[in-house]
């Protein structure tokens, strides 16, 4: 894959480290989360067919994290954006 790092531009996928589903925020107050909710935060992630927002680390480059929206069937990458930014509407 050719992954568009928001800071470095398109780079070969071997420069990157995968970080799983994006927009799974650390809870503001974990003590207020019940056991089921905490287990969901720890262990449960989407495994969707289609557009998927996920985290990437440009490990062999700028060493910065970002999010990308990738299609899990075609591997097309429709957007890449810094952490904290809102997920763009795709598709």
């Amino acid at each position, binding site marked *: *894959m*050719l992954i568009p790092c928001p800071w470095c531009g398109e780079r*070969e*996928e071997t420069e990157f*480290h995968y*970080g799983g589903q994006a927009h799974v*925020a*650390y*809870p503001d*107050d*974990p*003590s207020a*989360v019940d*056991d089921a909710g*905490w*287990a969901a*935060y*720890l262990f449960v992630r989407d495994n969707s067919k289609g557009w998927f927002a996920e*985290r990437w*680390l440009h*490990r062999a480059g700028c*060493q*910065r*994290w970002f999010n990308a929206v990738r299609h899990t069937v*075609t*591997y097309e990458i429709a957007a890449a954006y810094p*952490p*904290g930014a809102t997920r763009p509407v795709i598709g």
Partner: protein
Amino acid sequence: MNIEVDGEDLNAEAGDSLAAALLRSGRRVWSQGIYTGRPRGLISAGAEESNVFVQVLSGPGEPMVRATEIEAHDGLRVRTLAGKGALPAEADTARYDKAFAHADVLVVGGGPAGLMATLAAGRSGARVLLIDDQPRLGGWLHAARVRIDGRLGTGWADGVAAELASLPEVRVLTRTTVAGYYDHNSLVAVERRTDHLGDAVPVSVARQRLWHIRARQVVLATGAHERSIGFPDNDRPGIMLATSGAAYCWRYGVRPGLRAVVFGAHDGALAAATDLAEAGVEVVRTVDVRGGTWVTGTRADAHGVLAAVGLSDGSIVEADLLAVSGGWNPAVQLFSQSGGQIVWSDAVAGFVPGRPAQATHVAGAVTGTVDLATALADGARAGAAAASGAGFPTEPPDPPTVESGLPWGAPPAAYFLVPGGDPASVFLDLQRDATLHDLQRAMGAGLTSAEHVKRFTTIGTAADQGRGSGVLTVGVLAQLSGRPIDEIGTTTYRPPYTPISFALLAGRDRGRLADPERLTALHDWHVEHGAVFEDVGQWKRPWYFPVGDEDLDAAVRRECAAARTGVAVMDASTLGKIELQGDDVGVLLDRLYTNVFSTLAVGKVRYGVMCGPDGMAFDDGTTARLADDRWLMSTTTGNAARVLEWLEEWLQTEWPLLDVRCTSVTDQWSTLALVGPRSRDVLAALAPGLDVSVEGFGFMTLREAVVAGGPARVMRVSFSGELAYEINVATWHALNVWTEVLAAGAAYGIAPYGTETMHVLRAEKGYPIVGQDTDGTTTPQDLGMAWIVSKKKPDFVGKRSYARPHTVDPGRRQLVGLVPVDGRTRVAEGAQLVSPGARLTDTPVPMHGHVTSSYDSVALGTPFALALLSAGSQRHGEVLDAVDDGVPTAVRVVPPAAYDPDGARRDG
């Protein structure tokens, strides 16, 4: 040219493939079925070959290569194979390189369509890469008798090649095979640079190059492979794909037989018959299934070579060549690898490219077209479209005029299997020796999909990956099951298209270059002083320093004694060191360590355990506060990079507003661990300005001092329970400080020690090593370190998980010590803990835990182990069996901190 085949000399003409030379010799039998032992000969002239493979003995050698894909050259030595080759015992000494290319347009295939596509794209100014697997561009034009623009097809191809050479942005790679088509137009190709040169290879030239190519647009002009037909005894030497037979005549000037029957299901067979006849082969019968006749079987001579062909009209025709053509299989492998859809075409009687998944264009025979003029126009269109798509808008050039060729017209028949005959004699996959009988057994077992049949029969799993057998088998499957062929579909085509050697994939990353070696500043000293090394991550660390003929155990006993009774020193430079700066470092550390760091005073050091959100320990180490806003964190040797990434991940993705900057200083600082009751004396001698008294330099504090004449950071930390100092100096001073330490310690019998002694010392104290005594399911509480988990902090990463039912379960595996009941036996690391006297034959044997570390201990007077044991903290005193390889050893559970449990030795 002279070549050697199976120890006998053979003549070859210039331009011959090995297969052509074999055919030229007149001998027909060059292989045998891997299971049946039936004689086999050449079936094709190219990549479809599934019978004759050879082991190349000359040059760098190669275990298994198609005879059709070797260029004959002086000195070539090969051995023919009956099914499979043998890996040479010697290491491959040839050089293999990797190369990278970026192209606006990549054209795969240098036949007529590919040449036109390259011309069209190349003239636009785009950067074009053309890759072809043959030595000379033109593809099948060299094996045909067509005229293009008034000259022979070969001449036209040479003319195009000359124009391409004049275009500065066009690069042509011949003798190169595209083997993989991956995501986002990333392709991998194998360039064979020297095998055809024989002994004339310059030593500076790499034998092969592995090309990684990134292209904006790809044109696949990969052509088509001829397909056979299933009929009884269709594997005899003398039976050959029809167009391959013609290719031997017209490309190499060697006739594959003198008296031929041509058997086909499409016009291409008729064209091949004409080509054979014009080359002087007597074509005695042309059998076209569309005319209602077919081949019912064949008869062999005493050598197993084709002698006669039986026909459905009852006649038996003597022949030494049966040229078969069931149709064309468009070479869709790369298109399929790219994610493109493969669809069945009745008009083509083959599987053709459907919807592409990437910026991929197809042109020529891969689309199913069999007409040269169409292929040329197709190539021009695809090349222009690809260049335009890559940002070089251009129109397709006018294709050249084609003056010869047969009047194509009648549609091909989708014909795969003749009726009747012994199914065990109808071969579907020659290399796997698999027959119609095998396919029928698979169907009888209820298997209906192409993928299942492939796995049951092994059809399509050989080196050709189904090139010769795949569509034929799917066709037969459709015919026998009465299902439409497009419903069955093909098996999935996966890379590589042709085999790639491991040596090429490895390139120069072999032996010592396979992985970087990290060496400390003291490495040369360690080598000179006889250290035995072990690998810790990429680091080379001294394992132990044998004196005289000491073995590991003897050296470790001596090194441990020095550390426990005198003084010893270790190169601990491999510990990860991360400097953190900023106003919020304390806040960050409070969130990532289980204990409190923000209250740490400048000049103090604190031990911490880092856990994931699941509460499981993943690293530990000490962190010192150098100034209000400067901290120095140490990590385990193997985890340094991971911890730095961990810090960065939280800072970047969750807490971007924290004022913290992290940088690795592992390589900038060298670390000497000075250990033992006399370590204070040694340090005092080297740092006269430093107050080394217990009161002046307390445990877990840091001092900046001049040590051995240079600046140093000295920390009073201990991983052994003994009085100890960690001396950190700039890496270029390390050797000087190390030798000064040894000189100052000589009076006390100082010993350098390695990682094994370090492990023994820490295990005697019950200090776990994260990653050895933990396994990712271990909490700090499991390690007996509930004291390090803050109750006061509202939150830290991991805290919430300590309230999960799973982590509060009292039956969790917890760290314990073990001593053998017999006082002698050292149990094995990894040994399982079972109930005493448990019958090991009653499987499964209930397991209570396992041994994580095990050593002989002079200090304890007994071998000693650490283990993770269910509810271990409640089971001290209990006796269990530690089982290694079926042998139980009785062990008693003890607290992990067996040596100096009160910490009396800490201050020396």
